[in-house]
């Protein structure tokens, strides 16, 4: 069965680095791109990932020499993304990114929190406290965190059903997440939405959509409203490689390009649409090029700095020139949902391979350690803190009550006009909609 890695080699452009090289975040730009030779690539990758001391990881600028207290230092650090961006119909942004200790540590903490949250949700689902659908995002945290770092709360985000971490990045709380997953009153949708329907309108997060691909025209509509109201803000509409073949996406992109809407379509390409690998679903899996007349950018979605850089670039572009497509090359460790073991259509080796070589949290950890921004113990402490936060939130959510029965009939309409609604036995259960 073709593995992810070999499928990669078949479908990628010659100047694109094979995935095994993403483990090394700091190659100089003058480093010659390797040939797509599987054996060589895998050998090099083993070599790279076996290095522990970080001696291969040299910063381009040595602005930092002394260690500062965690998370307060905002002195700029200049780094390079793991790989250069690949562009379609536009000039790729530079690989050089500006960050700071503060930002890197925030990234680390946020991603660790999301990772812990998703793992905890897995356990809750197996304990039958979460029902129905549960689509987990672990592995893809860099996309949510990097995107949020490039945006303001005036910009809108809309995504599909793998929305727990995107909701958190937009300012949601752990209690709201766990309570909603368990169907309790304190949930962000008061228990009436479930895993796929998280919303946070005051942060311009518009969900949370269960119908594959529907969120893309909706996102272009948000961009339309922003342009109509002269907000000077943009919308990021996220979708997966499975949704990338949806017709309505191309319809919405066509209208967005005609009307110059500030819409950024972000394909979170985790290479599998449920159980179907991208090469089985798409004749052209170069999703960043599928916009044809719309420019596109291919980004290493496991590198939070690259994601941030690409989103900043895209926001600028969209405000001036209309829609642009970002393809985030990412990976999910879990299956499509909790009912999918995730190992029938891909090998366990592939999953562990990516986890070893490309994990977004490990990459940031290595960066932080190599720049002496924090000790290993301090990072472990952060992870412990985060774990405790998650456990506390779960405990609180478990105590939270389920919605009142009367909530069955609330919010059917914004303005119910006093009409009657009915329960299963209309002679027993009736309500007047407010």
């Amino acid at each position, binding site marked *: 069965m073709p593995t992810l890695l070999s499928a990669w080699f078949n479908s990628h452009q010659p100047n694109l680095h094979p995935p095994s090289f993403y483990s090394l975040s700091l190659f100089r730009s003058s480093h010659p791109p390797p040939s797509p030779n599987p054996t060589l690539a895998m050998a090099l990758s083993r070599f790279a990932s076996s290095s522990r001391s970080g001696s291969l990881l040299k910063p381009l600028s040595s602005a930092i020499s002394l260690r500062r207290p965690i998370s307060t230092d905002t002195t700029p650090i200049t780094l390079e993304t793991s790989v250069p961006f690949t562009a379609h119909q536009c000039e790729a942004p530079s690989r050089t990114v500006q960050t700071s200790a503060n930002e890197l540590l925030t990234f680390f903490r946020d991603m660790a929190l999301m990772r812990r949250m998703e793992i905890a949700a897995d356990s809750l689902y197996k304990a039958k406290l979460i029902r129905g659908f549960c689509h987990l995002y672990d592995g893809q945290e860099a996309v949510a965190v990097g995107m949020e770092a490039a945006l303001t709360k005036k910009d*809108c985000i*809309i995504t599909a059903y793998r929305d727990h971490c995107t909701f958190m990045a937009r300012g949601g709380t752990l209690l709201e997440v766990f309570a909603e997953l368990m169907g309790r009153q304190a949930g962000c*949708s*008061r*228990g*009436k*939405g479930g895993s796929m*329907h998280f*919303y*946070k*309108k005051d942060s311009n997060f*518009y*969900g*949370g*959509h*269960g*119908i594959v691909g*529907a969120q*893309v*025209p*909706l*996102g*272009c*509509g*948000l*961009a*339309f*409203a*922003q342009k*109509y*109201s002269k907000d000077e803000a943009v919308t990021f509409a996220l979708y997966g490689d499975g949704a990338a073949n949806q*017709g*309505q996406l*191309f*319809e*919405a992109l*066509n*209208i967005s390009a*005609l*009307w110059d809407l500030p819409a950024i379509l972000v394909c979170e390409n985790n290479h599998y649409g449920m159980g179907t690998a991208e090469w089985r679903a798409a004749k052209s899996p170069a999703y960043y090029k599928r916009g044809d007349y719309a420019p596109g950018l291919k980004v290493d979605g496991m590198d939070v700095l690259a994601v941030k850089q690409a989103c900043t670039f895209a926001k600028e572009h969209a405000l001036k020139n209309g829609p642009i497509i970002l393809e985030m090359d990412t990976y999910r460790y879990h299956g499509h949902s909790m009912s999918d073991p995730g190992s029938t259509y891909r090998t366990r080796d592939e999953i562990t391979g990516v986890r070893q070589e490309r994990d977004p949290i490990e990459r940031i950890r290595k960066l932080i350690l190599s720049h002496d921004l924090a000790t290993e113990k301090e990072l472990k402490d952060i992870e412990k803190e985060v774990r405790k936060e998650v456990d506390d939130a779960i405990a609180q959510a478990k105590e939270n009550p389920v919605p009142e029965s009367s909530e069955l009939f*609330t*919010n*059917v*309409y*914004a*303005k119910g*006009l006093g*009409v*009657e*609604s009915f329960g299963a036995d*209309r*002679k027993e259960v009736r309500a007047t909609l407010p």
Partner: protein
Amino acid sequence: MGALRDCQVDARQTEDGTPLPPRASSIIELLFPFFFQKREKKSRGEKMLVVRKKMLGQSLLIRPAVSVLRSYSSSAKQMTVRDALNSALDEEMSADQKVFLMGEEVGEYQGAYKISKGLLEKYGPERVLDTPITEAGFAGIAVGAAYHGLKPVVEFMTFNFSMQAIDHIINSAAKSNYMSAGQMSVPIVFRGPNGAAAGVGAQHSQCYAAWYASCPGLKVLTPYSSEDARGLLKAAIRDPDPVVFLENELLYGESFSVSDEVLDSSFCLPIGKAKIERVGRDVTITAFSKMVGHALKAAEILEKDGIDAEVINLRSIRPLDRSTINASVRKTNRLITVEEGFPQHGVGAEICASVVEESFAYLDAPVERIAGADVPMPYAANLERLAVPQVEDIVRAAKRACYRSVPLAAAA
């Protein structure tokens, strides 16, 4: 003189809705109206209504929504439904900057049926938007704009094409307020011609009232007259929920009288209230959209045979005005439901079920359903005529309900 006569409401109007002039003919009558009130003989049904209400302690609030006469100027203007819709759109766009119109040919073409004539010139291309022929795409974009606080009016060239966008109407618009526990209201209107036109064939003739009306979270309106068109479209645009506004192509050119009140820019009709177009006491006929005209014609024919039909213009399929329908049936004891769409699981089925649940004891005859034929719409003129309800179908059904029909011919 213009005396307001709330106590005695003479809601009988001529067919085109012209209000009858007030009846006071002397000072004494004005000062002591009580003595001059015409006491209409209560029908058996009405008497039973009073008795049963007392006996069974019915809690169903019975408020027939009969329109009250107002004494505006009696020089009734004529207005086509097309102009009514156009003026409603114009006024609402003028009143609220957030309202915009989107659809195929709504701008430069002036509207496929000229409903949006002149709007592009007046409001510009930012507010009147011509879309490509991509219903799923532009309906989704409109719903997204509504999420962010704008008030889109989406035109489907006919509602047959709304099926391309039905996922956005149901899953993105109707259910969002509920799934988000009130965070995401969707103040959108989907409008366009619905149902059969003339000779357009099977793919262009379906009525979608029953489909959309079954979905909680949507409101479904079906105007008949120009007054309906103006008042309901304005109400729909102002409403914070998704509204499916089902017009009828064959009604666009029809003229109706409109009073000054209707022409006023603040005129608005309530959503969820039916209108009794013709008061009667022998049989209730419910109808919506084009069929209201058929029902009124049928009522005229029935009157010659001594059957006094009450015609209810539903105006709103969701919410359905069950109280008006039930109150009427409790008065007349017989019901005919008329609709243009397919019969199975149609609007008439819901009305029949509602009446059986609420007013079973009052029915003196089985409920009759008149609907489109249970076949895709044929093209040939004679077959098309057989596929759509005709006035004589309604007359026949009413007579059956009154046990006055000609004996059925032996089955072939």
